């Protein structure tokens, strides 16, 4: 009787005081604390975690919901890691964080658990993102990459095929706006993410990259923003995207705001990550269900389409007391079955290559078939332990050139190159 009572008591207390119960009930029961972001489809996650807990009754997952903005989440996570918080076991890392976290010793290397043969089953870009100085630190939960959404109905009405080049996109959007704006004044040609924040770096990488430009030299030792390719791409965005198609309002948009414009039918073209497919086709949020097309991002005449690599990686905290259980959890959540579940329920693009020949997934997400080559070649942002610094400098640079129509991009770029190089030299001078 008393025993029963204790068990009931424990069950009720576990969610409230997770840490204090650890020592006595260690072998019997583990509570894993998993830090994740605020999902818009929490039920899908609830169900996924319930599945895990049914499969492994000795492990309970306690989720800590962080803000979704990548920067706010980064700050929160690093505060915890700096304080050697042992309560946190597993967390999601943005693809740009592993170098920083690895260098700081915050995340466990997974080489002995995550074998090379197993790694080969994942899209190589996502594995690369989790690798720093020849060690692997994370398992990719999914892949994200930039893609171009468009209004099938509007393009059809004006007799256009999806644009291959940025120049074609501008001409198409201009034509459609000319025809539609008299009856639809809120319509815009393009909606992307141009606010001064991390997303701006992702958007600009695609423009600069598809103009054959790079942010950093191939060996990662110098900033190359003054190269003609990078400058020309940026000037194009300022002149044609910000000042015409997106309207300067684009400078205030992160993903939610830009997607809202698209799903309400106020944009012809929209740049976003894979999840937007499901949202744009969900009648609860969207007025353009069934009229959404998706394709590769355009490129400039001298380049190829470039999609920024995004997505979230599972990592194990270096301060966790339960790395083994954490690994069990990660292995389960990234298994083919679970990735298929997320692909079907939330149209998250799997990180496992084999799932791109799964007919069920392809029926639910026909766009994956066309985008598979994009996923295979998605372009990472600079991989450096001081990425937050580099990113802030880049955000400032792009935002200034886009927001001030009269600023000279070249002059601004040389200042920025100089700033970034200062920090890159610092990293090169550190012992390995």
């Amino acid at each position, binding site marked *: 009787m008393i025993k029963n009572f204790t068990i009931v008591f424990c069950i009720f207390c576990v969610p409230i005081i997770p840490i204090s119960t650890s020592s006595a009930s260690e072998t019997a029961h583990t509570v894993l604390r998993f830090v994740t*972001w*605020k*999902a*818009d*489809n929490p039920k899908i996650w609830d169900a996924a975690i319930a599945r895990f807990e049914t499969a492994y009754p000795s492990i309970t997952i306690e989720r*800590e*919901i*962080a*803000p*979704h*903005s990548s920067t*706010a989440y980064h700050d*929160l996570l690093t*505060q*915890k890691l*700096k*304080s050697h*918080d042992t309560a946190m076991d597993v967390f999601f890392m943005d693809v740009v964080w592993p170098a920083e976290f690895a260098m700081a010793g915050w995340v466990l290397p997974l080489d002995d658990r995550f074998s090379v043969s197993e790694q080969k089953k994942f899209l190589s870009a996502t594995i690369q993102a989790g690798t720093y100085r020849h060690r692997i630190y994370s398992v990719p939960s999914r892949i994200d990459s930039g893609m171009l959404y468009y209004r099938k109905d509007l393009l059809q009405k004006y007799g256009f095929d999806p644009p291959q080049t940025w120049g074609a996109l501008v001409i198409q959007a201009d034509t459609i706006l000319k025809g539609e704006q008299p009856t639809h004044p*809120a319509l815009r040609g393009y909606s992307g993410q141009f606010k001064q924040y991390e997303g701006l770096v992702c958007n600009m990488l695609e423009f600069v990259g598809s103009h054959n430009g790079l942010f950093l030299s191939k060996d990662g030792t110098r900033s190359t923003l003054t190269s003609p390719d990078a400058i020309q791409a940026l000037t194009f965005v300022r002149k044609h995207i910000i000042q015409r198609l997106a309207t300067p309002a684009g400078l205030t948009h992160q*993903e*939610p*705001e830009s*997607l*809202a414009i698209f799903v*309400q039918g*106020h944009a012809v073209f929209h740049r976003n990550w894979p*999840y*937007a497919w499901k*949202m744009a086709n969900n009648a609860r*949020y969207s007025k353009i269900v069934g009229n959404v097309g998706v394709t590769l991002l355009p490129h400039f005449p001298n380049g190829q389409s470039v999609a920024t690599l995004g997505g979230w990686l599972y990592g194990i905290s270096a301060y966790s007391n339960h790395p083994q259980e954490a690994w069990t959890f990660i292995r389960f959540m990234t298994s083919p079955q679970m990735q298929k579940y997320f692909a079907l329920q939330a149209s998250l693009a799997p990180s496992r290559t084999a799932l791109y020949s799964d007919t069920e997934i392809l029926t639910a997400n026909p766009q994956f078939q066309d985008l598979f080559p994009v996923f295979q070649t998605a372009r990472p942002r600079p991989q450096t332990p001081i990425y937050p610094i580099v990113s802030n400098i880049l955000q400032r640079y792009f935002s200034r050139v886009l927001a001030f129509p009269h600023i000279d991009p070249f002059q601004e770029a040389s200042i920025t190159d100089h700033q970034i190089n200062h920090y890159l030299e610092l990293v090169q001078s550190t012992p390995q």
Partner: protein
Amino acid sequence: MKKPFLECSLLHVGIILSVIISLVPFFWFIITSLKSQTAVEAIPPTWWPNGNLDAYRSALLDHQLLNYMMNSVIVAGSTTIIALLLAIPAAYALARVRMKGKSLILGGLLSMSMFPQIVIAGPVWEILKHIGGLNTHWGLVLPYLTLTLPLAIWILATFFKELPRELEDAARVDGCTLWQTMSKVMAPLAAPGIFTAAILTFIYAWNEFFFALLILTDPEQQTLPVGIALFQGEFTMPWGELAAASVLATLPLVLVVLLFQRGIISGLSAGAIKG
């Protein structure tokens, strides 16, 4: 004395303008909070709400608003109580007891209330890390005490200073110790001042964002300002819910202001001018 017409109408225009400007942004959020999702996203915006309470339901249920409010009540409440317990004796001593270096202390307190948060943020975080105060409510109360004590002491010292000396002297003659004189005689007399200091401290702690953002990383522990500032869905910008949450978060303060505006006004002015 009767006022001339011009002066009188100027006054009325002034009153109406001040009230409208003060309240319009708030009304706009109330209107928004009562709209359905579709109405919020209408372009151009509509003036009248369609009386939809979905946003409130969602703010309370999906965004755990009550949890944030509860945390804010705990943090602001304990800050207020502890700050007063510390500030009353200190203010009394600084106002009434003959001590060397008093004006230095008062001046020092005043200048410390001018510190930018950023200059103490890093080390405060380090201290809290060492004593296990991160992600706890008491860990947030400690810096809040530092930030609110200077003003509370100044306000209270002003009040104590203006109380008549006779009562105090009588108490001392009757053999009361300094502590007894303070707690039994002087503190009750300074009740209006204490009350004002309490309200100001409470409002400060209820509204503070910088340290709350830094110290509370666990959403279960976070206070209202952090909840409201980081209010964003993964894929949508829920303006209706945000407006509803803001309205609910503000209501307690509106009530406090309506009930106690007299005390707030006299307290603020006393602390600032007569201090």
